[in-house]
């Protein structure tokens, strides 16, 4: 190779150019700077050193010009490691950018910050990663997952902290993040399988929608995971199938035991989930994904299911040369164990003259593995063509392949041998030599009938120059010298003449031949042997000298020779086992298929061993994540449809088919729902309060627009389609959404798995945040609605207008983040009040949904209106003006902290799980005597705060759950009775202000007499 060094003139040029670059970078014009940066990037691309410009470049890191900035980033990442001190100057810029409202800027700042390999900034990086991991934008979170690996490679001591971040990100539900965080997991803590348990099912379900590269990583991680968590599905399936029927009819007692053991295997549903969810990916356009699914099936699927991967792997053979190479390697390993899988596709492995050499030899390998009694004649005919190939290396490979076929399939051994003998007269030396070597091996397996072949080869000896072939012939002569007694000494004579000029390997075999002949036919060969041993004694190679000395001592009787001499014949002419011709891919299956280690057949650094199946499956329940059933219904019954249409409106089309199926399903489910709602109405008399409020809200809906869920009418799917089409415009409005969610909360039923179909998921993801939050935490009806109303405006101050407000504790119809407030206005004066409405409000940003102006309120009349106020999760009062035609009254609503919540349903298990993630505050109190049983406690808590009751297994622990209206943060309350009258109240929430406030209120309520 020519040395790639730079000449002096080059250096000179470079430095003079650099001066000019420096000036350009320090100019005021962005365009000049940009030009300079472009030239610098070109230098870096060529591998030239541009590090001298570091100070000049780094100044531009905060440039407004985004392209310039990006190029500076590229430069910075390249040279920061070399110029650590100067690189630090740029850090503050990134720290600022990390707070930028533009997610792309936040993400790229984190990317660059984490790519700067300067150990001093590790704490800054750590902080940035932690923050980005809880960023709103999934893109930024993805970037933080990448940054984890970078920080880990810079400072492995951060491992524990990074694992925390990984754990957090693993819980992320965005498909964008999944692949990257699993990658980080694999790099930082691949042994922490326990972090996967809870996310296993989620990962399986998200898999189809994750980007291709992430899929590869996740699949390979899940393969490893599955091998540690599930039991082997490979209990000799074939045997089982054959035996099962006979065993059944014979009712043989001996077999039943065996049977039981076999039948007892039930595939873990999670194992099945993985297999089912990866299968569609065999159709991916990305070859890496296809092969990773193939290896997953190979390592995890029951034997009879592995067949599904065959077609896809064969399809990949049409792809690029490099892809073919890897795929063929994997097929080669597979085909040794499972011939049947690829046999029908045998012709796809036929070699073309245009294939690259390594492709050819792999195809040959596979064809040989696939050979059996039925197809051997076809394969051999194909091989005949290959032997004639102009690519001699390939022809030699074919001869070896023929040898392997001949030993594996005894029917064709003779045919092959004859074919190989014919090749001995080939003009090409490599072909002949290879044939000799292979024939030698074949003869060893059945030497009896082939003395003519040995004679033929002896004749060839003069013409063959390839050492290996010459050595092979000599060995054959010696081994079967008794079968060719005339010829063997003659061959020895010939080789004795050329001994000094032979290769080492030939010399060794010559010595061997001489020794064997000396023992069997000493009369003719004694002198020749002496001669050869003498030549060997003075050979340059010590191997040959050693061998010569050893042989001499062994065969030539003299006074010094020991007991061994007697056994010389038995030692040298012992029957030798025939060599086994086997594939070089035979033991490759110790590596996981599809890996780099498999390709290079050695353990690559960082290779993670695939463990053996556990004998007993570890606890399955670790993967349990309680799915809240109503949520699914809510999504399924109501969201897909309107959302689908809404999606269409947003330029997000769905297929008609989705329409049809979902509409029919909606209908069937709706029948259920209508029957349920009639049940509900039966009960309604008993639950007067609740259902009245419900029917109230429904009533309202009817007056505005006809709701789709009318109990009596059962429209056809088509009608429904149209009705719902009308509603599409509504679906964009917030109240409709919350209406849907409130309806969904009251329905229960079975949800088919399909509901998580791809298209549906799509439509959900496109949706803005509030609804998806609602989707995750199911809002339930209030447990208790206090009737207490508060004064808003006294009739004296209001000049006859009095107003009272109360919290109806219903989800707000206008916007999910608002708290609904009911105001009853009464006219206590003696004249009608006109135009009652809401005026200015403070704080000015207060998000509030006002009631429509009341045109006229007659004396003694009262009216109830509802408001929606977004308190933004704080107890800060909402101040506004209540106006009449003539007057304005400043009023304020100050909510108790408990009113800022919405109750949610969850199971005890989920509750505990959530609890672990949140910070808590707690207090021990002495309870009032009346409050020591469950009823009053629930009552008291429900009065204070709008929380839902969580069913509890223990009598002394009461749990309540809710979320804040505005941000949807979870609030969990636990009241644990300890002893007679003490109780521990624990509140878990990430809201650091609301928690203690709620605690204070609860303490007061529960402790009061």
């Amino acid at each position, binding site marked *: 190779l020519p040395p790639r060094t730079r000449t002096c003139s080059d250096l000179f040029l470079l430095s003079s150019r650099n001066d000019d670059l420096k000036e350009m970078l320090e100019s005021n014009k962005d365009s000049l700077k940009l030009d300079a940066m472009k030239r610098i990037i070109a230098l870096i*691309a060529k591998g030239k050193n541009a590090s001298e410009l570091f100070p000049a470049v780094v100044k531009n890191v905060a440039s407004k010009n985004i392209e310039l900035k990006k190029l500076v980033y590229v430069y910075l990442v390249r040279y920061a490691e070399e110029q650590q001190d100067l690189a630090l100057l740029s850090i503050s810029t990134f720290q600022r950018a990390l707070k930028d409202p533009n997610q792309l800027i936040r993400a790229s700042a984190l990317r660059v910050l984490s790519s700067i390999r300067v150990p001093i900034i590790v704490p800054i990086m750590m902080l940035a990663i932690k923050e980005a991991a809880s960023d709103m934008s999934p893109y930024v979170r993805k970037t933080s997952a990448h940054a984890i690996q970078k920080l880990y490679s810079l400072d492995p001591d951060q491992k524990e902290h990074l694992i925390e971040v990984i754990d957090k990100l693993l819980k992320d539900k965005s498909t964008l993040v999944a692949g990257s965080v699993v990658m980080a997991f694999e790099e930082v803590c691949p042994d922490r399988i326990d972090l996967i348990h809870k996310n296993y099912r989620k990962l399986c379900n998200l898999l189809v929608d994750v980007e291709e590269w992430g899929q590869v990583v996740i699949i390979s991680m899940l393969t490893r995971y599955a091998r540690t968590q599930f039991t082997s599905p490979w209990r000799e399936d074939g045997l089982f199938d054959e035996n099962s029927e006979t065993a059944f009819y014979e009712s043989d007692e001996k077999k039943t035991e065996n049977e039981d053991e076999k039948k007892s295997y039930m595939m873990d549903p999670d194992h099945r989930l993985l297999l089912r969810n990866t299968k569609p990916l065999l159709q991916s356009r990305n070859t890496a994904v296809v092969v990773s699914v193939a290896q997953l099936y190979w390592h995890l699927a029951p034997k009879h299911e592995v067949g599904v991967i065959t077609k896809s792997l064969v399809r990949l053979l049409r792809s690029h040369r490099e892809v073919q190479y890897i795929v063929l390697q994997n097929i080669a390993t597979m085909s040794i164990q499972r011939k049947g899988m690829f046999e029908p596709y045998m012709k796809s492995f036929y070699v073309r003259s245009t294939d690259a050499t390594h492709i050819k030899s792999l195809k040959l390998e596979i064809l040989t593995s696939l050979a059996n009694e039925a197809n051997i004649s076809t394969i051999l005919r194909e091989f005949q063509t290959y032997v004639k190939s102009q690519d001699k290396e390939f022809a030699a490979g074919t001869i070896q392949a023929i040898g392997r076929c001949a030993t594996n399939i005894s029917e064709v051994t003779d045919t092959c041998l004859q074919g190989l003998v014919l090749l001995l007269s080939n003009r090409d030396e490599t072909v002949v030599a290879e044939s000799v070597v292979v024939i030698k091996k074949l003869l060893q397996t059945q030497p009896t009938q082939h003395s003519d072949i040995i004679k033929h080869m002896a004749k060839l000896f003069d013409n063959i120059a390839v050492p290996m072939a010459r050595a092979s012939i000599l060995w054959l002569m010696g081994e079967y010298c008794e079968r060719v007694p005339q010829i063997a000494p003659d061959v020895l004579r010939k080789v004795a003449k050329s001994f000094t000029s032979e290769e080492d390997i030939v010399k060794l075999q010559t010595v061997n031949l001489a020794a064997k002949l000396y023992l069997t036919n000493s009369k003719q060969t004694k002198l020749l042997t002496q001669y050869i041993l003498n030549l060997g004694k003075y050979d340059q190679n010590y191997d040959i000298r050693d061998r010569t000395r050893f042989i001499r001592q062994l065969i030539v009787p003299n006074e010094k020779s020991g007991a061994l001499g007697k056994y010389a014949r038995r030692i040298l002419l012992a029957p030798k086992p025939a060599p086994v011709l086997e594939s070089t891919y035979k033991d490759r299956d110790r590596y996981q298929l599809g890996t780099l280690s498999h390709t290079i057949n050695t353990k690559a650094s960082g290779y993670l061993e695939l463990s053996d199946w556990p004998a007993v499956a570890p606890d399955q329940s670790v993967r349990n994540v309680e799915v809240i059933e109503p949520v699914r219904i809510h999504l399924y019954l109501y969201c897909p449809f309107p959302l689908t249409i809404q999606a269409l409106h947003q330029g997000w089309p769905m297929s008609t088919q989705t329409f049809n199926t979902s509409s029919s399903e909606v209908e069937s489910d709706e029948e259920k729902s209508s029957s349920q709602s009639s049940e509900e109405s039966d009960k309604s008399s008993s639950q007067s309060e609740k259902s009245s409020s419900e029917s109230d809200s429904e009533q309202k809906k009817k007056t505005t627009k006809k709701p789709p869920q009318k109990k009596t009418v059962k429209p056809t799917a088509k009608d429904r389609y149209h009705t719902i089409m009308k509603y599409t415009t509504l679906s964009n409005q917030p109240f409709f959404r919350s209406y849907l969610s409130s309806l969904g909360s009251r329905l229960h039923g079975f949800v088919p798995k399909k509901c998580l179909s791809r298209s549906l998921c799509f439509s959900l993801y496109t949706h803005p945040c509030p609804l998806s939050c609602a989707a995750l935490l199911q809002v339930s009806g209030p447990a208790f609605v206090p009737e207490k109303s508060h004064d808003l405006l006294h009739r004296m101050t209001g000049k006859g207008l009095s107003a009272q407000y109360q919290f109806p504790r219903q989800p707000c119809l206008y916007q999910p983040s608002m708290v609904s407030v009911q105001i009853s206005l009464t006219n206590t004066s003696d004249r009608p009040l006109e135009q009652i409405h809401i005026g200015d409000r403070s704080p000015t940003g207060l998000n509030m949904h006002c009631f429509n102006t009341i045109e006229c309120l007659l004396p003694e009349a009262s009216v109830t209106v509802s408001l929606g106020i977004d308190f933004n999760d704080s107890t800060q009062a909402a101040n506004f003006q209540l106006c009449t035609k003539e007057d304005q009254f400043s009023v304020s609503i100050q909510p108790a902290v408990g009113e800022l919540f919405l109750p949610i349903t969850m199971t005890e298990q989920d509750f505990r799980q959530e609890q672990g993630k949140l910070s808590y505050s707690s207090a021990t109190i002495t309870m009032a005597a009346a409050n020591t049983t469950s009823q009053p406690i629930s009552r008291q808590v429900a009065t204070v705060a709008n929380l839902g009751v969580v069913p509890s297994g223990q009598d002394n622990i009461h749990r309540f759950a809710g979320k804040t209206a505005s941000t949807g943060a979870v609030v969990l309350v636990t009241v644990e009775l300890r002893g007679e009258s003490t109780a521990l109240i624990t509140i878990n929430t990430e809201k650091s202000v609301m928690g203690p406030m709620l605690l204070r209120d609860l303490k007061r309520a529960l402790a009061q007499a």
Partner: protein
Amino acid sequence: MIHSLFLVNSSGDIFLEKHWKSVVSRSVCDYFFEAQERASEPENVPPVIPTPHHYLISVLRHRIYFVAVIQSEVPPLFVIEFLHRVVDTFQDYFGVCTEAAIKDNVVVVYELLEEMLDNGFPLATESNILKELIKPPTILRTVVNTITGSTNVGEQLPTGQLSVVPWRRTGVKYTNNEAYFDVVEEIDAIIDKSGSTITAEIQGVIDACVKLTGMPDLTLSFMNPRLLDDVSFHPCVRFKRWEAERILSFIPPDGNFRLLSYHVSSQNLHPLRSASLVAIPVYVKHNITFREGSSQGRFELTLGPKQTMGKGVEAVLVSSQLPRGVLNTNLNPTQGTYTFDPVTKLLSWDVGKINPQKLPSLKGSMSLQAGASKPDENPTINIQFKIQQSALSGLKVNRLDMYGEKYKPFKGIKYMTKAGKFQVRT
């Protein structure tokens, strides 16, 4: 995962390097050069080369080696697939992927590579997303940029990155809405000396060029979907729908993309015919002989159409690697032109269109090295051809419907059959 990337041209020079982690010295490529020297043909360089501290995974496209440096275990196909994606992107951006094009656009190349990988893990490989981040260079844009001072780099996160249809950007607008689909089938075959088929397979693709406003949702159905034995889809295709109804339903990416590749198994083709073979559209009559001891060889080749369903066979190109002993040829084509390279021994004959009335043939003699022995093997003949307006398998698109947008798009479907790896052994 991917540590660094080196681009090496056919003469063995590194003309571009990019590192995503710490810098790896370019001397690591010496192992690659060694392997390159050992290989008789450029294609024979092994795709995976282990070195003491790194692993080199390379692909060869357009006579450029893309050599990726890996430091630890990673599925090799992951890297290979990614490298091919890089080449595709370059081709998409610059029209061609040559050393000159890459050198001319080195800044864009660098910006692209920066976006495509983060810390060695693919970040954005979807061409729609990349095009929003980095606009492809065009003459017009270059002019505009110099005048207005605007840049080629996007300031916002591409809409596709966060959406569930990452392959399509929002706000696509066209005055003429059109969707074209090309059904292209390639036939791979090996024909033996006597003219009988050893193996024949049909592989097809549907390439689309979709220029539609907004977010159209398309469905494409086939008359005979059962023909398709094995398929792979662009991620936009809804797999469930295909499984259930054999209908392709998708929101297309904007511009050119490959919707589907498929394999037609030979068994499915003619269920009534006992011989389960693919219809071979051309036949070759050949007579290539070398005589022992003679310095002359005979060469005769005649091509003819066969089972072409009445369509003409066009763009026929015959090539053959003659044995090393052949010094020169003296041949007469009845049509088209032929060349023989005495150094590489490659014979190629550009036939053009086959006229069934007057079959093209190439006849004459070959002069052999005096004294050299007769070559063992007759050369293999590779044939390329095209048949317009016909898909060999008989696959037919039934209809194409659009939902979600109001306008009426212009739709077009074209069929074509091509020879893939079509070899005749003589």
